[in-house]
């Protein structure tokens, strides 16, 4: 290597240094640290001591019924909300794309949840769903109006709570997806549709054979980020069901990690680390699978 290019790459590293330092201190180091903690049995952050090294933390966490409940909740949330929200967002975007008047207005309406505070939205859902001494909640009012039997959505059966959580999640993640998809739809060259019209292509076939393939990179992007986001769900659940999630049976993996550190039954950094590493492994694996699938599809 000649002197000039060594000099050049040195300069490059120098420019990267601030970002690298930042990432190193706040991302890489903690990740490695958590990894180490997860193998140190009974680590005490006050005295900085531990009993031994091994996989006991993992064994404990994986046998903990609260953790298993959290995993089940998280997986249900992911499997239900990601396809549902992406699908509905696609329908709404196509609708928005094909109407003329009121388009800007409706776009704003659909984007509002994105700029609304999570807890404020949680309050609204409380009004809709929570049973209080004064009211059964708006939705129960509707159900009884039509002759159904009211359900306690917040403190009631598991399926009802899951339903509210999924509805909430879908509603909250929708705006961003609609934003991305409408801009993806707008970026498709209209000449393709003209060409298709000249050939007498039906609307459905145009959508399946032209629109979908054209915007598929964006759909895959949304699915991948959607998976990651749903796996990290926590604040939404707190907004709906309060902080004692284990008691409500609605804990998520991130919630479990938090409880293990700071919750009422907390103070177990080792277990929290093990759970965090398990979550990391799950998200990593699923993202890899997603990328492989989408990569092979897109390059075909």
């Amino acid at each position, binding site marked *: 290597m000649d002197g000039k290019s060594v000099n050049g790459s040195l300069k490059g590293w120098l420019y990267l240094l601030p970002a690298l330092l930042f990432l190193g201190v706040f991302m890489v180091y903690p990740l490695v640290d958590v990894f180490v903690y997860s193998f140190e049995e009974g680590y005490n952050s006050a005295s900085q001591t531990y009993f031994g090294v091994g996989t006991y933390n993992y064994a404990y966490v994986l046998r903990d019924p609260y953790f298993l409940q959290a995993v089940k909740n998280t997986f249900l949330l992911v499997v239900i909300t990601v396809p549902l929200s992406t699908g509905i967002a696609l329908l709404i975007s196509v609708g928005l794309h094909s109407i003329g008047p009121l388009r800007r207005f409706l776009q704003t309406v659909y984007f509002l949840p994105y700029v609304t505070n999570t807890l404020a939205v949680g309050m609204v859902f409380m009004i809709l769903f929570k049973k209080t001494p004064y009211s059964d909640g708006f939705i129960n009012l509707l159900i009884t109006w039509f002759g159904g039997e009211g359900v306690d959505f917040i403190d009631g059966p598991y399926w009802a709570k899951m339903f509210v959580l999924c509805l909430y999640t879908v509603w909250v993640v929708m705006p961003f997806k609609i934003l991305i998809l409408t801009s993806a739809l707008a970026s498709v*060259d209209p*000449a*393709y549709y*003209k*060409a*298709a*019209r*000249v*050939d*007498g*292509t*039906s609307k459905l*076939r145009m959508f399946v*054979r*032209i629109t979908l*393939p*054209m915007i598929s990179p964006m759909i895959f992007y949304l699915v991948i980020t959607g998976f990651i986001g749903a796996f990290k769900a926590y604040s939404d659940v707190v907004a709906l069901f309060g902080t004692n999630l284990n008691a409500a049976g609605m804990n998520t993996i991130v919630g479990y990690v938090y409880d293990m550190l700071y919750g009422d039954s907390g103070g177990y950094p080792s277990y929290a680390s093990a759970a965090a590493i398990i979550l990391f492994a799950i998200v990593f694996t699923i993202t890899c699978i997603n990328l492989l699938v989408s990569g092979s599809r897109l390059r075909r």
Partner: protein
Amino acid sequence: MEVTLKGLTKKFPGRDRKNRSEVTAVDHMTLAIPDGQLLALLGPSGCGKSTVLNLISGLLAPTEGKIFFGEDDVTELPPEKRGIGLVFQNYALYPHLTVRQNILFPLENLKGKEKLTREEMLRKADEAAKLVQIESLMDRKPAELSGGQQQRVAIARALVKRPRVLLLDEPLSNLDARLRIQTREEIRRIQRETKITTVFVTHDQEEAMSISDLIVVMKEGVVQQIGRPQEVYDSPENLFVAKFLGTPPINVFEGQVRGHRLYIGEDAVLQANVPDAPVYVGVRPEGFLMCETGALSCRLNRVEVTGRDVSVVSENAAAVSRTVRSLIGAENGGEAVSGREGGEIRFDLVPRKVFLFDRETERRIFLEES
């Protein structure tokens, strides 16, 4: 298939916030395209030529007027019922499909009685590919092809259904100069082989002149002249057509007709048996003959030698653009004047290369043969 346009008009609603009046893109266009001919719609951008193409294709509905394919009135028919093939300026090939899938696409849309078996479709696609000579590229994606190849694929896709009319919207403008000449000859060959009536939109007069049977020159939605390329070049009906056709462009002078003589500045250059009037005088670059005793006096600017011809650039006060560009055959002593820059140079004018136009209407004033 003969294509006839009768009083075809298209108005668009005004988009401008201040000026909401309608914009007339095509104004009462009447035109007959004989069966199997290649017609070029020629004009500067914004003259409505692409709108005409979209009207013929059915992608746009006319405000007024009728379109006939042969005896059939197709004005109300949707594009797919008209039997047309359309090639876009940017080709509009589906990037996620291979060349073969692109060509098959129109066939797969056929429904009911017209529906083809898979074998028939593949056979037709191969035929179309063979016609434009892209058989070896069938399994590639459009992104892996050159511009010229993509153009061929687009033409194959337009031809695969055997359309009654082929429409080409600026098909060559995305290609480089060398490829453009090659491809336009290719289009001509394909059109001759298939004998499909073809309409070709372009703003490039050379392109239009070189391959079309008929040229329609348009300006601001109005047809200026229709005719065979050489006719339109040799006998422009107005100043716009004269200026639009020909490279290098025609030289325009402000002139006067006085007593059956045509004056440019103070030089009486030609006999003109027309009433006295101020006129514009258009002189084709090849209409100048260098001559010591020539009628028109100019001041020599420079001489450009391009091999076959010598381009003599000179100045004349009466010329609208100040400079006068004349093409002089190299063997006619064109080179002899080099070195005399700044000095006087005189030309005689070739009468059939000189056109007179009314100063007001810019219409042609025809000289009576004498």
